[in-house]
């Protein structure tokens, strides 16, 4: 089976081992270390780590299409945000009459806008199962329609990157409008509980952190399953020589569409887990800058390795937390400088460095698809 194959390979076992060990250690330090101990992990830190894991899953999704399929998506933030909005709508409906205006059905911003009834597309989101399906379906459908049109017309390379950028920018502008019914520029916030658990308690936060870790593990295994399957090798073939792959009889546009939709859905899941942890979703997640930042994480971590994307996302966001704490204005310069340094000295990213060291130890052949061409 393509999904169980990755579980037998060494690199995935190591990745999952490290991830689960980290989850266990954080949980242990949070629950069993006394508050005043230096080793205690506060609920704030747990949520912060959960946020990093969401970004890591998003980075894995981007690496799947960029590293293995050669599609540089500068609009993956759109899928992330759509998943986030689907989750946000569910959380809004869970507020019930506990909102500022106390309306049993309408979220606060609708009351504020003098709306009399719920827009049609808000129906169903009071049910968790429906909302969770929409978390996958909304980004998946957008990717399906967008990808179908783009790949059928054989739009690739820089042009596709520009269109994805335009896509997320257009969505940002649309979601900024109050008339869209998604809370305008304030977005959705003031969430109370999820599946009956109070979002403000430490236990729920820890639960969300662990859920995100598991989602990352599953997402990683799915991606790894795809890239180690024959379809993964076909993807690499599409990336390096699209016309040649077509002559071999593969429907390049369908391969691209499939992988793109899977990637969008994973990004949606990442967004859905992100929203309850940060407590808000607003149109700034659609901003083109955010989507470009994701690509920088993947480039820093190392393209076409998947685990490199995870390392990149976590490291860059940790650096961001530290830097914006010390010198908020210097962060973008630091990010830019880091990007330049890595491109010059580590063209294959941090993962490339790890591979080189491992290769020096055991001079074996590298696995498929690790030699990403720029």
């Amino acid at each position, binding site marked *: *089976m*393509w999904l169980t194959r990755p579980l037998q390979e060494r690199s995935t076992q190591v990745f999952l081992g490290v991830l689960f060990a980290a989850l266990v250690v954080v949980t242990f330090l949070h629950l069993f270390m006394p508050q005043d101990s230096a080793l205690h992990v506060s609920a704030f830190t747990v949520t912060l780590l959960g946020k990093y894991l969401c970004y890591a899953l998003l980075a894995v999704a981007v690496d799947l299409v960029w590293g293995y399929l050669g599609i540089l998506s500068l609009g993956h933030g759109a899928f992330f945000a759509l998943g986030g909005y689907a989750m946000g709508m569910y959380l809004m409906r869970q507020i019930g009459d506990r909102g500022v205006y106390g309306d049993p059905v309408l979220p606060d911003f609708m009351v504020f806008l003098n709306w009399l009834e719920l827009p049609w597309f808000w129906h169903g989101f009071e049910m968790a199962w429906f909302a969770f399906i929409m978390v996958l379906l909304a980004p998946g459908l957008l990717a399906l329609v967008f990808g179908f049109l783009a790949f059928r017309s054989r739009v690739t390379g820089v042009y596709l990157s520009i269109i994805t950028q335009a896509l997320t920018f257009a969505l940002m502008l649309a979601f900024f409008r109050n008339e869209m019914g998604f809370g305008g520029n304030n977005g959705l916030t003031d969430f109370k509980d999820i599946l009956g658990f109070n979002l403000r308690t430490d236990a729920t936060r820890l639960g969300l952190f662990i859920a995100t870790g598991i989602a990352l593990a599953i997402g990683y295994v799915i991606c790894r399953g*795809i890239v180690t*399957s*024959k*379809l993964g*090798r*076909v993807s*690499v*073939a599409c*990336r*390096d*020589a699209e*016309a*040649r*792959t*077509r*002559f*071999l*009889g*593969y*429907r390049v546009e*369908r*391969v691209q569409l*499939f992988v793109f939709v899977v990637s969008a859905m994973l990004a949606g899941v990442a967004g859905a887990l992100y929203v309850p942890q940060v407590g808000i979703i607003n149109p700034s997640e659609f901003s083109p800058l955010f989507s470009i930042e994701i690509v920088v994480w993947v480039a820093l971590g190392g393209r076409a390795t998947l685990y490199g994307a995870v390392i990149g996302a976590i490291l860059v966001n940790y650096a961001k937390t530290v830097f914006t704490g010390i010198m908020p204005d210097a962060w973008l310069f630091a990010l830019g400088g880091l990007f330049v340094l890595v491109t010059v000295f580590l063209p294959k990213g941090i993962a490339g460095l790890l591979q080189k060291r491992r290769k020096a130890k055991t001079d074996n*052949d590298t696995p*498929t*698809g*690790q*030699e*990403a*061409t720029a």
Partner: protein
Amino acid sequence: MSIFQELTDREHVFEFLTQVQSPVDVRHGPILYLEDVNVSFDGFKAINNLNLTIDDGELRCIIGPNGAGKTTMMDIITGKTRPDTGSVWFGSRHNLLTMNEPDIASLGIGRKFQKPTVFEALTVFENLELAMAADKRVFPTLTAIMKPEYRDRIDEVLEMIGLKDLRDRLAGILSHGQKQWLEIGMLLMQKPRLLLVDEPVAGMTEQEMERTAELLTSLAGKQSVVVVEHDMGFVRSIARKVTVLHQGSVLAEGTMDQVSNDPEVIKVYLGEEA
């Protein structure tokens, strides 16, 4: 049978349902048949009333000076370029002008490009695996597993093209000649009925050329092979029948000796004004 009976007959299989799967019909001899084909790019006639027939199992060489339309002809057969007028048939059943590139490829026409394009980030073995005749839709490809008989088939082709020792090396490290053989190997994995080989020995050493000649002649009979080549020595060593193209149409056709003594051909190749 009346139309009404035909429509209500539950066992009746309509022809349009089976057509795509139907085998290539070569009962009449030719496997490839081009008639009165014309192509022009911005007024320039790349192909001018081209007529060409390739028999099943034949090894045919096509020669001609630069710009004679050799590559354009390949493009038409594989569906990359659509001719302005004319007809192109594969066997006597398949009209290639109504089909797209993947369909033509899966029908059994394999093409080796002028510049070798192998997948450099994949190993030699994986290159052949992707080229193997199989269900190439997305989900069957995702769930595909490497069966022993597939492995044997790949090893068999590796043996034929002489790359057995390089089985698990990345295709990117192969020499130019080895890449050309890998390409031919990839074509063979598709079990094609017709092989289109574009300049197989360009840039090869003398020994590599000899091995390529052996390889191509060993293929003829099982498959039909069309070789486009500049190198006269190489063509002489493999060809039984040669077609000379000039300015988009056939100038001469016959054995190498007949063709090379044809005054028209000599004129074109020696560059004299016609």
